[in-house]
């Protein structure tokens, strides 16, 4: 039986962008306000999962052509890499550092290695969650 999912699809089209934007916002807000790599990653993942629910896997894959296993692997490498990176500056493993730089439009902005670390966390979360859900659900076709 084919489910009539016009409503779901229509809503998804609008909502996904809100979710994804929220995810990105949460990721960057994390330093001073609620948010961060883990939540940001989760929200992004939930947006993508919603896409998969509303459309089929092939359609989404055409729009979001990432290999999510690789995304997760890159995330893990980023997270561990920033940790190892600190060794080369002769400080203990996983030491984070940051700097405030005044940019033309954004004003006073902070740049820090913790952002890279959080990006690693976020990518791992997105990659792993989507990989798990895909690999379990894709079986249905086969």
């Amino acid at each position, binding site marked *: 039986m084919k489910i009539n999912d016009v409503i779901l699809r229509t809503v998804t089209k609008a909502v996904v962008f809100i979710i994804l934007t929220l995810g990105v916002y*949460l990721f960057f807000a*994390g*330093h*001073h*306000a*609620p*948010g*961060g*790599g*883990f*939540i940001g990653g*989760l*929200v992004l*993942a*939930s947006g993508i*999962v919603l896409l998969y*629910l509303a459309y089929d896997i092939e359609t989404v894959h055409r729009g979001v052509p990432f290999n999510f*296993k690789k995304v*997760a*692997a890159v*995330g*893990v490498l980023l*997270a*561990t890499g920033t*940790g190892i990176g600190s060794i080369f500056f002769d400080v203990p*493993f*996983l030491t*984070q550092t*940051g700097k405030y730089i005044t940019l033309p439009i954004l004003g006073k902005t*902070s740049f*820090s290695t*913790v952002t890279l*670390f*959080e990006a*690693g*966390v976020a990518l*791992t*979360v997105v*990659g*792993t*969650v989507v*990989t*798990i*859900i895909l*690999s*379990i*659900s894709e*079986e*249905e076709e086969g």
Partner: protein
Amino acid sequence: MMILLAIALPFLIAALIPIFYRHVRQIHLGWLILVVPVSLFIFFTRFIRPIASGDVFIYTYHWIPSFNINIITYLDGLSLIFTLLITGIGSLVTLYSIFYLSEKESLHHFYCYLLLFMGAMLGVVLSDNLMVLYTFWELTSVSSFLLIAFWHHRKASRAGARKAMVITVTGGIAMLAGFLMLAQMAGSFSIREIIAMDISSETLFIPAMLCVLLGAFTKSAQFPFHIWLPDAMEAPTPVSAYLHSATMVKAGIYLVARLSPVFGGVYLWFWLVTGVGLLTLLWGSFNAVRQTDLKALLAYSTVSQLGLIMSLFGVGSVAYHLGYATENIIYTQATFAALFHLVNHSTFKGALFMVVGIVDHEVGTRDVRRLGGLMALMPVTFTIAMIGSLSMAGLPPFNGFLSKEMFFTSMLTIAQADVFSLQTVGVFLPIIAWIASVFTFIYSVILVYKTFLGKFKPERLDKRPHEAPIGMLISPLLLVVFIIGIFIFPNALGQAILKPAMASLYPDAPLTQIVPHIAAWHGLQPELLMTIGVVVIGLILFKLLPKWRRVYGIFTRERSFNALYNNTISFAERSSLRITNRYMTGDITQYFVYIYVFFVAVIAGYFLWSGAFTYDMSKDSKIEYYEWILIFVMIFAAVYILFAKRRMTAVLLNGVLGYCIAFFFVTFRAPDLALTQLVVESITTVLFLVCFRYLPDMRAERKSRSKRNFHVALSLFTGATVTMIGLAVLNYDRFPPVSAYFNDALALAGGANIVNTILGDFRAFDTMLEVVVLFIAGLGVYTLTKLKPKKEAPTHED
């Protein structure tokens, strides 16, 4: 620093091989790899001169300073001998392997493991820190395992690899315990510092010694742990020549030599090292005679030669007890003989292994019953085998003769010593040595006679035998040059390489006196008579071999140490399977029972036992009306789950619970938690729904009444425990709270959101590992669902 890089180089190249081997198609990969051992060999030869003049090279790299584990490379005379063997024989073996292994084999694996081994072995002999030494030590076991199982489609290879691994690693763990005891006694992991201290009166001294010896004996295939070495011969011949005769099996000897200044001079050490060494010598040579496979013969021969070297180190340790007065200095000669024979053994045994490899490669079999009369067909190989065997048998004019004579001298000398109750039993030592030498002579003759002389039996061979290509002959020929060269100029080796090693073994002794002058001709001494006796009796026994072969019938398969090993392994497998099956029932309810019983017992047990459970609700804020509503919704949902008939209902109700908790987080002003909870809840629900496909319909489970009651009670206890934690946590005062630590989050971590500064900065290590765990879990799900095992693997023997 350079030495540390020298250790790192093989590892580095080994790591690069998997990336680059695809681009090497035109030439054999071995040619590229050959550069590594050759350049390392040249690098280490440059140390010969400064070390001979008394220098040592120490470099400290602070690896884990908080645990006092530093990578200290320490290059002295003793290490130098081993580094030269490792890199020198390594070069020759690599060269040999280029012609031995065809390009169809998975060469990148082979050379990757080989370099891994080379680096690890260099690490073993160059580390001053016991922990670092141990790490490299186990790494040699691992690479040996991989190399033995190189032809892993063969059952015997896999079994041999496992046997070697089990035995050497068991010994390795014992050794680790010994090292820890040593470090405990001396307060340092540094071998130099331990040697400098006198710890012989400590209570842990003897246990530490036994543990360390166990490690050394298993690694060096000493009786009764020798059984792994013959099975390790399933490895490709270059590997046997390299690891299982020239280098890795000598790691145990290195350890004994290195720690002799610590343990030497003690009664037990002397008797264990000498006794086990002599027993191994006798048993190995006795068993070598019965072998029909040439490699097995060489394996037992290696076992026995290792025993010989080991026993010499034992005899040499007497000098630590007696001191270095003029009349006692003679005992240090045994150590000198050990070092000398160590080098000699590597030359002739390496050459012999390569010869056997050539025979195997060109004739197609190593079975002496099928071989014979190859002399005319393979003249060069025959010459090499002849020289190697005669050197092994201890005949002039080859280097084995010199060290064998010194071995007899040492045994004759020690027989007359009057320490360690040698007065009574000492006379047996030279007798055992002599008997073992007779057997050594017999198997050396067998090796040459049965293979190259006698009758040619082409009907029993699969291939038409012919001489090996020149490339395969270069390495053994070079070794033969050494065999003869060392005989002619033994003192060049003695002064340049053995003397500094003696200096590092006997730091307090007068160096000029402990290095004897090696001479081939001593006059008509007992040693020479013993050698003549060996030749005469050996030849007679060889001729009469068919008559007394029946002796070996006593040592049947069922009564061997192999049977003991096999029974132990299969018993361990069966009993662990039985134990595992008892608790791994495949029933999830059962697993939950384990988890919650443990949880209740430990957590609730702790709170009740320690009296930490206190609560005080007087300071709690008022519960608002909307909170009451939430609570009732949650209670309703939670109770209703129990009566849900369909999975979907249960999951949705579970979702209700989750969202309500998120609501609570909102009312308690924890937006981070609320957000996380909301998203996690949504994704979990999706996950549940995806998984449903695979689950059967929910049915009421039929359980006995007592089981059901137990489950209900356990659930109630679990709930009560969680409630108790919730109540007690505000008044818990056993540890100082860590929250004060995060007050300065902005200043310390530059972030106002302390949740995030905890995740990303204060506890970043946890977060990092969690990320890794998450990733591994994802990979696990992927592999479990996507990758199906192949139906059959026809290339593997069972």
